[in-house]
Protein backbone atom coordinates (compact mmCIF):
# COMPACT_ATOMS: atom_id res chain seq x y z
CA UNK A 1 0.00 0.00 0.00
CA UNK A 2 1.33 3.43 -0.91
CA UNK A 3 0.48 5.87 1.89
CA UNK A 4 2.03 9.08 0.60
CA UNK A 5 1.68 9.73 -3.09
CA UNK A 6 4.98 10.42 -4.74
CA UNK A 7 6.95 11.39 -1.61
CA UNK A 8 9.85 9.31 -2.94
CA UNK A 9 8.38 8.65 -6.37
CA UNK A 10 10.80 7.13 -8.87
CA UNK A 11 13.62 7.34 -6.36
CA UNK A 12 16.17 4.64 -5.72
CA UNK A 13 17.00 3.94 -2.08
CA UNK A 14 19.57 1.71 -0.40
CA UNK A 15 19.09 0.18 3.06
CA UNK A 16 22.23 -1.02 4.86
CA UNK A 17 21.83 -3.11 8.00
CA UNK A 18 23.04 -6.46 9.32
CA UNK A 19 19.52 -7.21 10.58
CA UNK A 20 17.17 -8.97 8.14
CA UNK A 21 14.18 -7.59 10.04
CA UNK A 22 15.46 -3.99 9.89
CA UNK A 23 16.15 -4.25 6.18
CA UNK A 24 12.66 -5.57 5.65
CA UNK A 25 10.91 -2.97 7.86
CA UNK A 26 12.87 0.03 6.61
CA UNK A 27 12.65 -1.11 2.99
CA UNK A 28 8.89 -1.58 3.28
CA UNK A 29 8.62 1.87 4.85
CA UNK A 30 10.45 3.44 1.93
CA UNK A 31 8.19 1.62 -0.53
CA UNK A 32 5.12 2.95 1.32
CA UNK A 33 6.54 6.42 0.80
CA UNK A 34 6.69 5.79 -2.93
CA UNK A 35 10.23 4.59 -3.56
CA UNK A 36 10.14 2.47 -6.69
CA UNK A 37 13.52 0.84 -6.37
CA UNK A 38 14.69 -0.23 -2.91
CA UNK A 39 18.03 -2.00 -2.69
CA UNK A 40 19.39 -3.53 0.48
CA UNK A 41 22.52 -5.19 1.75
CA UNK A 42 23.80 -6.47 5.11
CA UNK A 43 27.18 -4.71 5.29
CA UNK A 44 28.83 -1.37 4.64
CA UNK A 45 31.42 -3.04 2.45
CA UNK A 46 28.71 -4.36 0.13
CA UNK A 47 26.99 -0.97 0.18
CA UNK A 48 30.26 0.68 -0.83
CA UNK A 49 30.59 -1.73 -3.76
CA UNK A 50 26.96 -1.29 -4.84
CA UNK A 51 27.22 2.50 -4.77
CA UNK A 52 30.51 2.44 -6.66
CA UNK A 53 29.32 0.08 -9.36
CA UNK A 54 25.95 1.60 -10.23
CA UNK A 55 25.47 3.68 -13.34
CA UNK A 56 22.46 5.48 -11.91
CA UNK A 57 23.14 7.11 -8.55
CA UNK A 58 21.16 6.11 -5.46
CA UNK A 59 18.94 8.96 -4.23
CA UNK A 60 18.71 8.09 -0.55
CA UNK A 61 20.85 5.89 1.68
CA UNK A 62 19.66 4.55 5.01
CA UNK A 63 22.54 2.95 6.93
CA UNK A 64 22.87 1.47 10.40
CA UNK A 65 25.79 2.99 12.29
CA UNK A 66 26.81 -0.55 13.32
CA UNK A 67 26.72 -2.01 9.80
CA UNK A 68 29.56 -4.54 9.64
CA UNK A 69 32.65 -4.06 7.53
CA UNK A 70 32.26 -0.42 6.75
CA UNK A 71 30.03 1.16 9.37
CA UNK A 72 27.45 3.88 8.75
CA UNK A 73 29.74 6.78 9.66
CA UNK A 74 32.56 5.48 7.44
CA UNK A 75 30.15 5.09 4.54
CA UNK A 76 28.79 8.60 5.09
CA UNK A 77 32.29 10.06 5.26
CA UNK A 78 33.33 8.20 2.09
CA UNK A 79 30.34 9.74 0.32
CA UNK A 80 30.91 13.27 1.64
CA UNK A 81 34.59 13.38 0.69
CA UNK A 82 33.96 12.06 -2.83
CA UNK A 83 35.28 8.50 -2.49
CA UNK A 84 32.12 7.04 -4.03
CA UNK A 85 32.05 7.70 -7.72
CA UNK A 86 28.78 8.50 -9.50
CA UNK A 87 27.27 9.85 -6.31
CA UNK A 88 26.61 13.46 -5.37
CA UNK A 89 28.73 14.45 -2.36
CA UNK A 90 25.64 15.88 -0.69
CA UNK A 91 23.28 12.99 -1.48
CA UNK A 92 20.63 12.30 1.16
CA UNK A 93 22.03 10.05 3.88
CA UNK A 94 20.17 8.90 6.98
CA UNK A 95 21.84 7.03 9.84
CA UNK A 96 19.92 4.56 12.00
CA UNK A 97 20.66 3.04 15.38
CA UNK A 98 19.01 1.53 18.41
CA UNK A 99 21.25 3.19 20.98
CA UNK A 100 22.54 6.62 20.07
CA UNK A 101 25.40 8.15 22.07
CA UNK A 102 26.39 11.81 22.21
CA UNK A 103 29.51 11.20 20.12
CA UNK A 104 27.37 9.46 17.48
CA UNK A 105 25.08 12.48 17.20
CA UNK A 106 28.00 14.90 17.12
CA UNK A 107 29.80 12.93 14.39
CA UNK A 108 26.59 12.62 12.37
CA UNK A 109 26.12 16.38 12.60
CA UNK A 110 29.72 17.08 11.66
CA UNK A 111 29.31 14.87 8.58
CA UNK A 112 26.07 16.65 7.64
CA UNK A 113 23.86 13.59 8.00
CA UNK A 114 20.43 14.47 6.64
CA UNK A 115 18.70 12.31 9.20
CA UNK A 116 19.23 10.16 12.28
CA UNK A 117 16.57 7.60 13.14
CA UNK A 118 16.38 5.88 16.51
CA UNK A 119 14.91 2.38 16.15
CA UNK A 120 12.38 1.00 16.58
CA UNK A 121 10.42 3.67 14.78
CA UNK A 122 6.72 3.73 14.00
CA UNK A 123 5.74 4.59 10.45
CA UNK A 124 4.43 8.12 11.10
CA UNK A 125 7.73 9.12 12.71
CA UNK A 126 9.71 7.38 9.99
CA UNK A 127 7.75 9.34 7.39
CA UNK A 128 8.46 12.67 9.15
CA UNK A 129 12.16 11.84 9.50
CA UNK A 130 12.49 10.95 5.82
CA UNK A 131 10.65 14.12 4.80
CA UNK A 132 13.01 16.14 7.01
CA UNK A 133 16.04 14.42 5.47
CA UNK A 134 14.79 15.13 1.95
CA UNK A 135 14.19 18.84 2.60
CA UNK A 136 17.67 19.42 4.05
CA UNK A 137 20.39 20.01 1.47
CA UNK A 138 23.91 20.76 2.65
CA UNK A 139 26.57 22.41 0.50
CA UNK A 140 29.36 19.90 -0.29
CA UNK A 141 32.46 20.49 1.81
CA UNK A 142 34.87 17.55 1.36
CA UNK A 143 37.75 19.34 3.12
CA UNK A 144 35.79 19.77 6.34
CA UNK A 145 34.22 16.31 6.19
CA UNK A 146 37.61 14.62 5.68
CA UNK A 147 38.75 16.02 9.02
CA UNK A 148 35.87 14.62 11.05
CA UNK A 149 37.02 12.03 13.58
CA UNK A 150 34.69 9.05 13.48
CA UNK A 151 33.44 7.53 16.73
CA UNK A 152 34.75 4.10 17.62
CA UNK A 153 32.23 1.47 16.56
CA UNK A 154 32.41 -2.02 17.96
CA UNK A 155 33.28 -4.55 15.26
CA UNK A 156 34.55 -1.94 12.81
CA UNK A 157 36.62 -3.94 10.33
CA UNK A 158 38.52 -0.81 9.35
CA UNK A 159 39.90 -0.35 12.88
CA UNK A 160 43.13 -2.27 13.40
Amino acid sequence: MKIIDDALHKLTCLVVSASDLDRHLLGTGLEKLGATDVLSCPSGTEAFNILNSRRQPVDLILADIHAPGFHGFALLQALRVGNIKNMRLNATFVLTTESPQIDHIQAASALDANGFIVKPVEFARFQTAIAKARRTVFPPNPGRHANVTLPAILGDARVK
Partner: protein
Amino acid sequence: MSNSTLAMLGLGGETGSAQLHRIKLSDYLKIEEKLSAEQKTALAVFLAHGASAQDQDQLDESGSIIQLIIWSSDSAAAESVAGSAVLNADLPRHILWMLANDDERVAAPVLEKSAALTEEDLLGIIQWSGNPGKMNSIARRDAVSETVVHALACHGDETVARTLLENSGAMVSADAFDVVLDRFGEIESIQAAIAGREIVSSAVAQRLLSVITNPEIGAVLAARETAPPSNAASPARFGAIGLDFAESEQTLDSGLNVLVKDGALTEPALVELLLDGGFELFVRAFARRTQSDPKDTRRRLVEETAEFLPLAWKTAAFSEDWLPIARAAMLALIELRDATGSTDPKLFRRNLYALTGAILRREGVKLTGARLDFFVRHKPK
Protein backbone atom coordinates in the same frame (compact mmCIF):
# COMPACT_ATOMS: atom_id res chain seq x y z
CA MET B 1 7.52 25.03 29.00
CA SER B 2 4.02 24.66 30.41
CA ASN B 3 3.34 22.88 33.69
CA SER B 4 1.27 20.30 31.87
CA THR B 5 4.21 19.41 29.65
CA LEU B 6 6.50 19.22 32.66
CA ALA B 7 3.97 16.98 34.34
CA MET B 8 3.77 14.84 31.25
CA LEU B 9 7.53 14.43 31.40
CA GLY B 10 7.25 13.39 35.02
CA LEU B 11 8.92 16.60 36.10
CA GLY B 12 6.04 18.58 37.53
CA GLY B 13 6.28 20.80 40.58
CA GLU B 14 8.61 23.65 41.44
CA THR B 15 11.77 21.78 40.61
CA GLY B 16 10.55 20.58 37.23
CA SER B 17 12.10 23.32 35.19
CA ALA B 18 15.49 23.01 36.90
CA GLN B 19 15.44 19.24 36.44
CA LEU B 20 14.64 19.59 32.79
CA HIS B 21 17.67 21.83 32.28
CA ARG B 22 19.79 18.89 33.45
CA ILE B 23 18.15 16.28 31.27
CA LYS B 24 20.51 13.68 29.79
CA LEU B 25 20.31 12.09 26.38
CA SER B 26 19.65 8.72 28.04
CA ASP B 27 16.69 10.23 29.98
CA TYR B 28 15.25 11.63 26.78
CA LEU B 29 15.54 8.31 24.96
CA LYS B 30 13.56 6.63 27.76
CA ILE B 31 10.60 9.01 27.36
CA GLU B 32 10.95 9.88 23.67
CA GLU B 33 8.39 7.36 22.49
CA LYS B 34 5.74 8.77 24.83
CA LEU B 35 6.18 12.37 23.73
CA SER B 36 3.98 13.97 21.10
CA ALA B 37 5.55 16.03 18.33
CA GLU B 38 4.34 19.20 20.10
CA GLN B 39 5.96 18.16 23.37
CA LYS B 40 9.24 17.38 21.64
CA THR B 41 9.20 20.78 19.99
CA ALA B 42 8.43 22.44 23.33
CA LEU B 43 11.33 20.55 24.91
CA ALA B 44 13.75 21.61 22.15
CA VAL B 45 12.65 25.24 22.46
CA PHE B 46 13.00 25.06 26.24
CA LEU B 47 16.51 23.60 26.05
CA ALA B 48 17.58 26.10 23.38
CA HIS B 49 16.41 28.98 25.57
CA GLY B 50 18.35 27.71 28.56
CA ALA B 51 21.59 26.82 26.80
CA SER B 52 23.51 29.87 28.02
CA ALA B 53 23.19 28.74 31.64
CA GLN B 54 24.64 25.29 30.98
CA ASP B 55 28.17 23.95 31.35
CA GLN B 56 29.87 22.16 28.44
CA ASP B 57 28.82 18.64 29.49
CA GLN B 58 25.19 19.65 29.84
CA LEU B 59 25.40 21.59 26.56
CA ASP B 60 26.54 18.38 24.84
CA GLU B 61 23.58 16.53 26.35
CA SER B 62 21.04 19.24 25.49
CA GLY B 63 22.56 19.83 22.06
CA SER B 64 22.25 16.13 21.22
CA ILE B 65 18.61 16.06 22.31
CA ILE B 66 17.77 19.19 20.31
CA GLN B 67 19.54 17.72 17.27
CA LEU B 68 17.61 14.44 17.54
CA ILE B 69 14.34 16.37 17.82
CA ILE B 70 15.15 18.46 14.73
CA TRP B 71 16.00 15.32 12.75
CA SER B 72 12.54 13.99 13.55
CA SER B 73 10.51 17.17 13.11
CA ASP B 74 8.24 18.47 10.43
CA SER B 75 8.76 21.88 8.94
CA ALA B 76 6.50 23.78 11.35
CA ALA B 77 8.18 22.26 14.42
CA ALA B 78 11.66 22.96 13.06
CA GLU B 79 10.57 26.54 12.45
CA SER B 80 9.65 26.95 16.14
CA VAL B 81 13.00 25.55 17.20
CA ALA B 82 14.83 27.84 14.75
CA GLY B 83 13.09 30.93 16.11
CA SER B 84 14.30 30.04 19.58
CA ALA B 85 17.75 28.71 18.68
CA VAL B 86 18.78 31.85 16.85
CA LEU B 87 18.39 33.87 20.06
CA ASN B 88 21.00 31.84 21.92
CA ALA B 89 24.62 32.36 20.94
CA ASP B 90 25.78 29.50 23.18
CA LEU B 91 24.03 26.73 21.28
CA PRO B 92 26.33 24.33 19.43
CA ARG B 93 26.96 25.65 15.92
CA HIS B 94 25.93 22.38 14.26
CA ILE B 95 22.33 22.91 15.36
CA LEU B 96 22.15 26.29 13.66
CA TRP B 97 23.94 24.87 10.60
CA MET B 98 21.34 22.10 10.33
CA LEU B 99 18.50 24.64 10.59
CA ALA B 100 20.16 26.96 8.07
CA ASN B 101 20.11 24.14 5.52
CA ASP B 102 16.51 23.16 6.18
CA ASP B 103 13.75 24.54 3.99
CA GLU B 104 13.39 28.25 3.42
CA ARG B 105 10.84 28.94 6.16
CA VAL B 106 12.90 27.16 8.83
CA ALA B 107 16.20 28.64 7.68
CA ALA B 108 15.05 32.26 7.40
CA PRO B 109 15.58 33.47 11.01
CA VAL B 110 18.89 31.63 11.29
CA LEU B 111 20.26 33.00 8.02
CA GLU B 112 19.17 36.50 8.91
CA LYS B 113 20.26 36.67 12.52
CA SER B 114 22.63 33.95 13.63
CA ALA B 115 26.14 35.09 14.47
CA ALA B 116 27.25 31.44 14.56
CA LEU B 117 27.32 31.17 10.77
CA THR B 118 30.67 32.05 9.22
CA GLU B 119 31.30 33.78 5.93
CA GLU B 120 32.26 30.36 4.50
CA ASP B 121 28.93 28.93 5.69
CA LEU B 122 26.97 31.73 4.05
CA LEU B 123 28.93 31.45 0.80
CA GLY B 124 28.27 27.69 0.69
CA ILE B 125 24.52 28.20 1.09
CA ILE B 126 24.45 30.99 -1.51
CA GLN B 127 26.36 28.95 -4.06
CA TRP B 128 24.63 25.60 -3.50
CA SER B 129 21.09 26.20 -2.37
CA GLY B 130 20.06 28.15 -5.47
CA ASN B 131 17.22 29.38 -3.25
CA PRO B 132 16.41 33.09 -3.67
CA GLY B 133 14.39 33.13 -0.43
CA LYS B 134 17.41 31.93 1.56
CA MET B 135 19.63 34.45 -0.21
CA ASN B 136 17.17 37.20 0.62
CA SER B 137 17.40 36.29 4.31
CA ILE B 138 21.20 36.52 4.13
CA ALA B 139 20.91 39.88 2.35
CA ARG B 140 18.92 41.20 5.33
CA ARG B 141 21.69 40.51 7.90
CA ASP B 142 22.79 43.48 10.00
CA ALA B 143 26.24 43.33 8.42
CA VAL B 144 26.97 41.69 5.07
CA SER B 145 30.63 41.50 4.06
CA GLU B 146 31.88 42.50 0.60
CA THR B 147 32.53 38.85 -0.31
CA VAL B 148 29.04 37.74 0.66
CA VAL B 149 27.49 40.76 -1.08
CA HIS B 150 29.37 39.87 -4.26
CA ALA B 151 28.18 36.24 -4.12
CA LEU B 152 24.59 37.37 -3.57
CA ALA B 153 24.86 39.82 -6.45
CA CYS B 154 26.08 36.98 -8.71
CA HIS B 155 23.63 34.24 -7.61
CA GLY B 156 20.55 36.08 -6.30
CA ASP B 157 17.53 37.35 -8.16
CA GLU B 158 16.20 40.87 -8.48
CA THR B 159 14.59 40.80 -5.03
CA VAL B 160 17.87 39.75 -3.42
CA ALA B 161 19.70 42.57 -5.21
CA ARG B 162 17.13 45.10 -4.06
CA THR B 163 17.26 43.87 -0.45
CA LEU B 164 21.06 44.21 -0.50
CA LEU B 165 20.96 47.71 -1.93
CA GLU B 166 18.39 48.78 0.67
CA ASN B 167 20.49 47.34 3.52
CA SER B 168 22.90 49.99 4.78
CA GLY B 169 24.86 47.27 6.59
CA ALA B 170 25.73 45.57 3.30
CA MET B 171 29.20 46.49 2.07
CA VAL B 172 28.59 46.86 -1.65
CA SER B 173 31.88 47.15 -3.53
CA ALA B 174 32.30 48.73 -6.94
CA ASP B 175 32.53 45.21 -8.42
CA ALA B 176 29.23 44.21 -6.83
CA PHE B 177 27.54 47.36 -8.14
CA ASP B 178 28.82 46.39 -11.60
CA VAL B 179 27.40 42.87 -11.29
CA VAL B 180 24.01 44.23 -10.17
CA LEU B 181 23.97 46.76 -13.00
CA ASP B 182 24.98 44.08 -15.53
CA ARG B 183 22.19 41.75 -14.38
CA PHE B 184 19.40 44.08 -13.33
CA GLY B 185 20.43 47.55 -14.51
CA GLU B 186 17.33 47.89 -16.67
CA ILE B 187 14.93 47.44 -13.75
CA GLU B 188 13.64 50.68 -12.33
CA SER B 189 13.34 49.53 -8.72
CA ILE B 190 17.00 48.48 -8.80
CA GLN B 191 18.00 51.84 -10.27
CA ALA B 192 16.07 53.61 -7.51
CA ALA B 193 17.68 51.43 -4.83
CA ILE B 194 21.16 52.27 -6.11
CA ALA B 195 20.32 55.97 -6.25
CA GLY B 196 19.09 55.68 -2.68
CA ARG B 197 22.37 54.22 -1.33
CA GLU B 198 24.17 56.48 1.10
CA ILE B 199 27.45 56.06 -0.76
CA VAL B 200 27.72 55.66 -4.51
CA SER B 201 31.02 56.17 -6.34
CA SER B 202 31.04 58.57 -9.25
CA ALA B 203 31.83 55.68 -11.62
CA VAL B 204 28.69 53.81 -10.50
CA ALA B 205 26.62 57.00 -10.66
CA GLN B 206 27.82 57.65 -14.19
CA ARG B 207 26.95 54.15 -15.28
CA LEU B 208 23.55 54.36 -13.64
CA LEU B 209 22.83 57.69 -15.31
CA SER B 210 23.44 56.06 -18.68
CA VAL B 211 20.65 53.49 -18.17
CA ILE B 212 17.93 55.24 -16.18
CA THR B 213 14.72 56.14 -17.94
CA ASN B 214 12.73 57.59 -15.04
CA PRO B 215 13.58 61.30 -14.70
CA GLU B 216 12.76 61.23 -10.97
CA ILE B 217 15.53 58.73 -10.30
CA GLY B 218 17.82 60.79 -12.48
CA ALA B 219 17.02 63.85 -10.41
CA VAL B 220 17.77 62.00 -7.14
CA LEU B 221 21.07 60.89 -8.55
CA ALA B 222 22.01 64.26 -9.96
CA ALA B 223 21.17 66.01 -6.70
CA ARG B 224 23.21 63.77 -4.47
CA GLU B 225 26.81 64.30 -3.62
CA THR B 226 28.59 61.22 -4.93
CA ALA B 227 31.58 59.80 -3.13
CA PRO B 228 34.85 59.49 -5.04
CA PRO B 229 35.73 56.09 -6.50
CA SER B 230 37.20 53.90 -3.79
CA ASN B 231 40.59 53.74 -5.51
CA ALA B 232 40.88 57.51 -5.98
CA ALA B 233 43.74 59.30 -4.26
CA SER B 234 42.45 61.06 -1.19
CA PRO B 235 45.17 63.01 0.59
CA ALA B 236 42.80 64.15 3.32
CA ARG B 237 42.37 60.54 4.48
CA PHE B 238 46.04 59.62 4.41
CA GLY B 239 46.98 57.97 7.66
CA ALA B 240 43.54 58.60 9.08
CA ILE B 241 41.85 56.20 11.45
CA GLY B 242 38.28 56.55 12.54
CA LEU B 243 35.94 59.45 12.15
CA ASP B 244 37.65 62.29 13.99
CA PHE B 245 40.62 62.73 11.64
CA ALA B 246 39.17 65.99 10.37
CA GLU B 247 38.83 67.48 13.84
CA SER B 248 41.25 70.27 14.66
CA GLU B 249 43.80 69.96 17.44
CA GLN B 250 41.83 72.56 19.34
CA THR B 251 38.58 70.56 19.12
CA LEU B 252 40.32 67.39 20.24
CA ASP B 253 41.98 69.18 23.16
CA SER B 254 38.69 70.63 24.24
CA GLY B 255 37.10 67.17 23.98
CA LEU B 256 39.84 65.81 26.24
CA ASN B 257 39.29 68.60 28.74
CA VAL B 258 35.60 67.71 28.95
CA LEU B 259 36.48 64.04 29.59
CA VAL B 260 38.95 64.99 32.33
CA LYS B 261 36.52 67.41 33.92
CA ASP B 262 33.77 64.80 33.92
CA GLY B 263 36.10 62.22 35.44
CA ALA B 264 35.47 60.09 32.32
CA LEU B 265 38.94 58.65 31.71
CA THR B 266 37.47 55.26 32.53
CA GLU B 267 37.41 51.92 30.71
CA PRO B 268 33.83 52.15 29.38
CA ALA B 269 34.26 55.78 28.35
CA LEU B 270 37.42 55.02 26.41
CA VAL B 271 35.99 51.91 24.78
CA GLU B 272 32.96 54.00 23.82
CA LEU B 273 35.28 56.44 22.06
CA LEU B 274 36.74 53.57 20.04
CA LEU B 275 33.32 52.17 19.10
CA ASP B 276 32.23 55.66 18.04
CA GLY B 277 35.25 55.85 15.74
CA GLY B 278 36.86 58.59 17.82
CA PHE B 279 40.40 57.30 17.53
CA GLU B 280 42.36 60.56 17.92
CA LEU B 281 40.42 61.56 21.04
CA PHE B 282 40.93 58.03 22.40
CA VAL B 283 44.68 58.41 21.87
CA ARG B 284 44.76 61.69 23.76
CA ALA B 285 42.61 60.36 26.61
CA PHE B 286 44.57 57.13 26.87
CA ALA B 287 47.90 58.99 26.80
CA ARG B 288 46.66 61.32 29.54
CA ARG B 289 45.62 58.34 31.66
CA THR B 290 48.97 56.59 31.15
CA GLN B 291 50.90 59.86 31.38
CA SER B 292 52.60 59.19 28.04
CA ASP B 293 53.37 61.20 24.96
CA PRO B 294 50.26 61.17 22.68
CA LYS B 295 52.30 60.90 19.48
CA ASP B 296 54.25 57.92 20.77
CA THR B 297 51.03 56.35 22.12
CA ARG B 298 49.36 56.78 18.73
CA ARG B 299 52.28 55.26 16.83
CA ARG B 300 52.54 52.25 19.12
CA LEU B 301 48.78 51.66 19.14
CA VAL B 302 48.80 51.50 15.35
CA GLU B 303 52.04 49.63 14.81
CA GLU B 304 52.15 47.31 17.83
CA THR B 305 48.49 46.98 18.87
CA ALA B 306 48.67 43.41 20.15
CA GLU B 307 51.75 44.00 22.32
CA PHE B 308 51.35 47.62 23.34
CA LEU B 309 47.64 47.84 24.25
CA PRO B 310 47.74 45.24 27.10
CA LEU B 311 50.86 46.82 28.59
CA ALA B 312 49.47 50.33 28.43
CA TRP B 313 46.11 49.07 29.75
CA LYS B 314 47.93 47.78 32.81
CA THR B 315 49.84 51.05 33.16
CA ALA B 316 46.51 52.88 33.12
CA ALA B 317 45.38 50.61 35.99
CA PHE B 318 42.34 49.62 33.93
CA SER B 319 40.35 46.46 34.59
CA GLU B 320 41.46 43.54 32.39
CA ASP B 321 37.78 42.72 31.86
CA TRP B 322 37.52 45.57 29.38
CA LEU B 323 40.73 44.80 27.50
CA PRO B 324 39.31 42.24 24.98
CA ILE B 325 36.60 44.58 23.77
CA ALA B 326 39.02 47.52 23.59
CA ARG B 327 41.49 45.39 21.65
CA ALA B 328 38.81 44.14 19.24
CA ALA B 329 37.51 47.67 18.62
CA MET B 330 41.08 48.91 18.06
CA LEU B 331 41.85 46.11 15.57
CA ALA B 332 38.55 46.77 13.80
CA LEU B 333 39.35 50.48 13.52
CA ILE B 334 42.74 49.74 12.04
CA GLU B 335 41.29 47.16 9.66
CA LEU B 336 38.61 49.57 8.48
CA ARG B 337 41.13 52.41 8.11
CA ASP B 338 41.36 52.22 4.34
CA ALA B 339 38.88 49.47 3.63
CA THR B 340 35.71 51.25 2.64
CA GLY B 341 36.63 54.68 1.33
CA SER B 342 33.40 55.69 3.03
CA THR B 343 33.04 59.11 4.58
CA ASP B 344 29.61 58.34 5.98
CA PRO B 345 29.81 58.25 9.81
CA LYS B 346 26.70 56.11 10.24
CA LEU B 347 27.91 53.42 7.87
CA PHE B 348 31.43 53.57 9.33
CA ARG B 349 30.10 53.04 12.87
CA ARG B 350 27.93 50.14 11.76
CA ASN B 351 30.83 48.45 10.03
CA LEU B 352 33.07 49.14 12.99
CA TYR B 353 30.55 47.59 15.38
CA ALA B 354 30.02 44.55 13.15
CA LEU B 355 33.74 43.99 12.70
CA THR B 356 34.42 44.41 16.44
CA GLY B 357 31.77 41.76 17.13
CA ALA B 358 33.28 39.47 14.49
CA ILE B 359 36.77 39.81 16.00
CA LEU B 360 35.41 39.03 19.49
CA ARG B 361 33.71 35.91 18.12
CA ARG B 362 36.78 34.88 16.13
CA GLU B 363 38.93 35.13 19.25
CA GLY B 364 36.39 33.22 21.34
CA VAL B 365 35.77 36.16 23.68
CA LYS B 366 32.52 35.86 25.58
CA LEU B 367 31.26 39.16 26.93
CA THR B 368 29.26 38.91 30.10
CA GLY B 369 27.62 41.21 32.62
CA ALA B 370 28.41 44.92 32.27
CA ARG B 371 30.59 44.39 29.17
CA LEU B 372 27.80 42.54 27.35
CA ASP B 373 25.20 45.20 28.31
CA PHE B 374 27.59 47.91 27.19
CA PHE B 375 28.27 46.27 23.82
CA VAL B 376 24.60 45.58 23.10
CA ARG B 377 23.68 49.14 24.07
CA HIS B 378 26.24 50.57 21.67
CA LYS B 379 24.88 48.90 18.57
CA PRO B 380 24.50 51.76 16.06
CA LYS B 381 20.92 52.45 15.02
